[in-house]
């Protein structure tokens, strides 16, 4: 043994050192834990030097530029760029909220929540290794940065924090080969996984060949990965050929266009809606809506009524109530007195007990009031209405109390005895105002 050790001393030391490092790697991979001591030492030793170099560069070269070349335009430009970035984010947020169909809901959501809380950071250095796509930023755990946080710019996502140290953080860029994030396309809402490729473009994987993705279409974060809040721009499609199993969609990341200098680390993410684009046509074809001309109606068949659906009837009722009470929907500040919705009939023509029939409304069926109990309890299901030969109101307006009552109807016209004083809900439905 002694002979072996003395004869192969160098080789023995080499094997011991290699084995020790292999065990170190195995421990990290197996336990998914890091060796923070070594990293913190190295990063704490290196990043202050980097920050110093960056400061020196900025205050020497930047000084010359500021005073002798640009005379203050540079600083103004930087300030405007920052403001522009903030406004872009705000604008994106507002646009996405206002593009939702329900304007009232969008406004209430806007009031109730604010955009993601972020902290600005400056890139101070790259990670080691030729293939490495990681950078150091000058914000660390002392600024509230934690690993796993998203890093964005107003133009799109940049990467995610993989390590956080007291003075700096390590950010993996979207172009890193091990990067992945959930994305969704704007137009066709195609979900996929964004993967870095080690160069300037990224790949959106796991999209079936049957899915439709256009060149130039935008991808946004889907929020599925629990790192990036939903609705942040990712990039535009540059190519989308079919692959063996999945499409090979290449995306040019918009957040890294023109290099990465200053970034925003999302401390508290808020999901946003993906801005609505042109909705792609479905894969199946549907018939156009039928025209309501009498000529196309078969002779002898009952004529279709203009108020063909419950929604139409409800709209007409609300319109008349508004006219009667001289109320214009959509006007008046929040909190102003709404119309009295307790004094409206049921959409099936059943007036609530003790209320008058609004003028101009289609009258209720003759037997309908009797079906409502004196206590105001919901009417029991009646026998099926038998068609009579005499002229009748439009079929859709007949009393069909055995039909399920819609949620909206319950809200608007509750039984009077159970809720004599009902605070009507504030409804700002633009459709009613039309």
């Amino acid at each position, binding site marked *: 043994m002694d002979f072996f050790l003395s004869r192969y001393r160098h080789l023995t030391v*080499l094997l011991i050192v290699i084995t020790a490092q292999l065990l170190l790697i195995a421990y*990290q*991979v197996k336990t998914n834990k*890091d060796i923070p001591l070594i990293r913190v030492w*190295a990063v704490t030793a*290196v990043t202050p030097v980097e920050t110093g170099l960056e400061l020196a560069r900025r205050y020497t070269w930047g000084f010359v530029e500021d005073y002798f070349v640009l005379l203050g335009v540079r600083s103004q430009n930087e300030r405007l760029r920052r403001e522009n970035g903030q406004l872009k984010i705000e604008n994106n947020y507002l646009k996405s909220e206002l593009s939702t169909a329900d304007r009232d809901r969008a406004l209430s959501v806007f009031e109730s929540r604010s955009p993601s809380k972020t902290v600005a950071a400056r890139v101070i250095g790259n990670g080691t290794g030729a293939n490495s796509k*990681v950078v*150091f930023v000058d914000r660390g755990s002392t600024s509230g940065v934690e690993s796993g946080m998203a890093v964005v710019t107003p133009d799109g996502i940049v990467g995610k924090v993989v390590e956080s140290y007291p003075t700096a953080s390590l950010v993996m860029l979207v172009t890193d080969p091990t990067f992945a994030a959930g994305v969704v396309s704007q137009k066709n809402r195609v979900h996929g996984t964004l993967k870095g490729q080690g160069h300037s473009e990224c790949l959106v994987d796991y999209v079936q060949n049957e899915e439709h993705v256009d060149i130039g279409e935008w991808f946004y974060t889907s929020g599925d990965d629990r790192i990036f809040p939903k609705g942040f721009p990712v990039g535009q499609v540059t190519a989308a050929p079919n692959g063996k199993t999945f499409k090979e969609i290449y995306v040019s990341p918009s957040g890294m266009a023109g290099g990465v200098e200053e970034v925003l680390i999302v401390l508290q993410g808020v999901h946003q809606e993906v801005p609505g684009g042109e909705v792609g046509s479905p894969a199946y074809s549907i018939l156009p809506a039928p025209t309501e001309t009498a000529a196309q109606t078969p002779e002898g068949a009952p004529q279709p009524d203009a108020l063909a659906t419950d929604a139409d009837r409800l709209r007409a009722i609300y319109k008349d109530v508004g006219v009667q009470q001289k109320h214009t929907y959509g006007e008046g500040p929040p909190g102003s007195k709404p119309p009295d919705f307790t004094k409206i009939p049921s959409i099936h023509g059943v007036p609530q007990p003790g209320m008058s029939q609004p003028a101009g409304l289609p009258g209720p069926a003759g037997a309908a009031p009797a079906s409502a109990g004196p206590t105001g309890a919901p009417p029991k299901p009646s026998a099926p209405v038998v068609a009579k030969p005499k002229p009748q109101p439009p079929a859709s307006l007949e009393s069909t109390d055995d039909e399920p009552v819609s949620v909206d109807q319950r809200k608007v016209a509750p039984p009077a005895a159970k809720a004599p004083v009902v605070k009507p809900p504030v409804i700002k439905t633009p459709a009613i105002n039309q």
Partner: protein
Amino acid sequence: MTEYTERLLTESPRKDAADRFRTVWLVVIPLIAVLSQVYVPRFIPFLAYLELPLLITVHFALSTGGPIPALFYGMSIGLVQDSLSHQPIGMYGIVKTLVGYFAAQVSMRFDVQNPVLIFILAFFFYFFHQFFYWVLSRALLGEVLGFDAQQTVIFGLLNAAVALPLFRLLDKLRVAR
């Protein structure tokens, strides 16, 4: 055997073994190399190909001639690089340990002052470094990364070209004990 090859094979670098870096340079030079690798590509992205820590390791191994100091030196530089990357600590450590060891072994058999040999060794060790790192990434971490041999060869040649003036500069920093 010609006079040149005789000199190439018999002149041991041990004659220079007494030459040592000053201790301070042993720490400062690798730190500068790692810093430059981290900082310079921000402004000159093309220089990202430059693997200065590797060249420093090779130079140290060739100039000291002792495999054990060389492998520990390589390991230290590699671990610092690992600390500044997002990979588990030890990946660059293992690769540079091997580079240091093999470079020191080579220096015991050849005249490593020869510029042609320096060029070849720098190229070889760059290729070995990149290839072995790729193998370790696949084998130990299960990462499915591509290995662009053509690009590695080109970068290897560029690193070898940089190694020539760099080694000359580092030689000047050596002092006789």
